[in-house]
């Protein structure tokens, strides 16, 4: 490139010029950029405020678009407050890319912490906030400085950043946590700014969970948020509760009524937050009650939220191989009920669970067959494509455990009804296999009954040899009577484990 001409020296290139220049350059971009960086290096060292700020502006642009290496540029000395602030801002982006640079500028940054100028302070604290979130241990020695700011500053922007820093530092050093928790509670009690309150709640709920009094105070403040009309505060209150939930479920239970009420809110975000909280409250003792409440809400909700509710019920109940369920009969009937909800799109998940439970829990098979039977005879369900997988499970279950069925003939009719043509062929296969299983079962039972009856008849005939015709006639009668009654497998029920009553 030619040596700087008169024109270059007279007029500092503005940001627009750089952008235009870059757009024109296609192949020689890197040389252009290095020339620009040279210029910037010179300009930054001048004392003229305007030149410096333009140089910084160009630098920021280049950094955000072209990720250049700015390490050498930080050796410049900036004393003016205004420029320094911008320099700190720029420098922080640099640190993200080149963490070594942080070490180089560390001393100067720490000096800035002591600055009395609030603007510099807020920029520097902002930088440390980001740095501490990535590598908290290195910034632990600066804790006393931050403590001073926490206690002394009145500027909410700065205080919020300092709180975030302490949220990262406190878990590493319990003695630090002990000292800091009091000033934080103080702020929580006294501040008028809701943003500050929320940040304090968040800090306490994430990093100071062992301090009972702090947590109790935070819970009180959360309740205040929840009772407000402002949807923003309500949302943040619920969000705060969900942060607290893992370690302090009592806080959520205390606010149970508000949480359940929020399921009805107009705002989908609030509804989703309350749904998460409700699922967090579920335990063995209350799962039946909670599912009842949720299913009622699902019936009243629109498509999206309805499926969110059903999805979360299904996933919570099947956690750890159905840990929280004690009454499987109830759960299986709930699954049947969920399939009937008009908006339900969770056919696949219900299918998996029906089959899974059927295989694992022997005692629930009769109930399972009953539920499956009800689902199969309903012609309306065949029209809903989202439920086809679930119907396939119902068919399989009824075929596999047909011995528990109260009315196999009706079952067979359901499996063979004409509307099954609406089903995809893979599911019709399952239907047909189940139909064969049911048919085979019916035939076997019928033959067994016939055998039993023939045995009875031969007993009778061997006894009554003298009075043939009359005895034969009387012996025939019971058989005919049986035939007239129609086929009923319950007569042979003594051969099965459980008498089944429908």
């Amino acid at each position, binding site marked *: 490139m030619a040596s700087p001409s008169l024109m270059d020296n007279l007029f500092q290139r503005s940001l627009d010029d750089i952008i235009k220049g870059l757009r024109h350059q296609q192949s020689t971009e890197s040389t252009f950029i290095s020339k620009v960086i040279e210029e910037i290096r010179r300009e930054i060292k001048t004392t003229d405020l*305007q030149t410096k700020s333009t140089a910084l*502006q160009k630098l*920021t642009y280049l950094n*955000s*678009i072209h*990720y250049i290496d700015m390490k050498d540029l930080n050796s410049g000395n900036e004393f003016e407050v205004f420029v320094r*602030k*911008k320099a700190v*801002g*720029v420098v*922080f*982006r640099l640190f993200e890319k080149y963490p070594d640079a942080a070490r180089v500028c560390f001393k100067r940054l720490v000096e800035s912490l002591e600055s009395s100028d609030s*603007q510099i302070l*807020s*920029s520097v604290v*902002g930088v440390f906030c*980001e740095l501490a*979130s990535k590598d908290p241990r290195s910034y632990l020695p600066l804790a006393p400085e931050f403590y001073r700011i926490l206690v002394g500053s009145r*500027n*909410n*922007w700065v205080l*919020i950043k300092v709180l*975030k820093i302490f949220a990262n530092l406190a878990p590493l050093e319990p003695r630090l946590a002990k000292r800091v928790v009091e000033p934080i509670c103080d702020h929580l009690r006294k501040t008028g700014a*809701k*943003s500050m309150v*929320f*940040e304090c709640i*968040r800090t306490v709920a994430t990093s100071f969970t062992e301090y009972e009094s702090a947590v109790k105070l935070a819970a009180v403040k959360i309740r205040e948020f929840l009772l407000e009309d402002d*949807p*923003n505060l*309500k*949302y*943040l209150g619920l969000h705060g509760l969900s942060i607290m939930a893992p370690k302090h479920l009592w806080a959520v239970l205390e606010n149970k009524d508000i949480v359940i009420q929020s399921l009805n809110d*107009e*705002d989908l*975000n*609030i509804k989703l937050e309350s749904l998460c909280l409700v699922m967090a409250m579920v335990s063995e003792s209350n799962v039946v009650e909670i599912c009842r409440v949720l299913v009622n809400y699902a019936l009243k909700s629109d498509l999206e939220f309805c499926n969110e509710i059903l999805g979360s019920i299904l996933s919570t109940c099947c956690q750890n191989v159905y840990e929280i369920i004690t009454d499987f009969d109830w759960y299986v009937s709930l699954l049947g009920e969920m399939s009937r909800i008009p908006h339900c799109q969770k056919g696949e998940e219900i299918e998996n669970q029906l089959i899974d439970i059927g295989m694992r829990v022997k005692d629930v098979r009769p109930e399972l067959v009953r539920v499956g039977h009800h689902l199969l005879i309903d012609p309306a369900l065949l029209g809903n494509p989202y439920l086809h997988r679930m119907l396939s499970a119902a068919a399989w279950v009824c075929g596999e455990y047909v011995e528990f069925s109260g009315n196999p003939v009706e079952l067979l009719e359901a499996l063979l009804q004409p509307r099954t043509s609406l089903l995809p062929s893979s599911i019709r296969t399952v239907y047909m296999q189940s139909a064969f299983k049911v048919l085979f079962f019916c035939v076997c039972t019928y033959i067994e009954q016939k055998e039993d009856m023939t045995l009875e008849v031969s007993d009778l005939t061997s006894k009554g040899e003298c009075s043939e015709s009359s005895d034969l006639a009387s012996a025939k009668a019971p058989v005919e009577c049986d035939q007239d009654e129609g086929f009923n497998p319950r007569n042979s029920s003594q051969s099965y484990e459980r008498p089944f009553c429908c």
Partner: protein
Amino acid sequence: MIQFVLLISRQGKVRLTKWYSPYTQKERSKVIRELSGVILTRGPKLCNFVEWRGHKVVYKRYASLYFCMGIDQEDNELEVLEIIHHYVEILDRYFGSVCELDLIFNFHKAYYALDELLIAGELQESSKKTVARLIAAQDSLVEAAKEQASSLSNIISQATK
């Protein structure tokens, strides 16, 4: 940190965009398109925070414009609402009862104000007076530069003759 700032009109026209993280052109249009869809359909009584693709977006409607800022998970939403309000007050002070038309015809000034307010996605100037002073200074610089350019062009045209 704030990832991006968008100003969208009620009809979905974009009035201002500022990106504090590297987003490709394609990503940017995707963000604008999808966020417009989500935010413009929200009712007036709903809360001002939206979860979208792992980001949180804080938005507020002022007259016919939606001011949206995308933030990280750790950021304080109420603080960002404050920042949006701060920006609007600065614009109001500068333009005197600002309306969308002001921003359409003087978008470069809206950008100056935003650049004074936010650097690298962080708030860096919380005093409205200072920002007003700085923008006024910027304006006078622009005026001076215009004058200079018109007189210098004479010099140059003479020098190159």
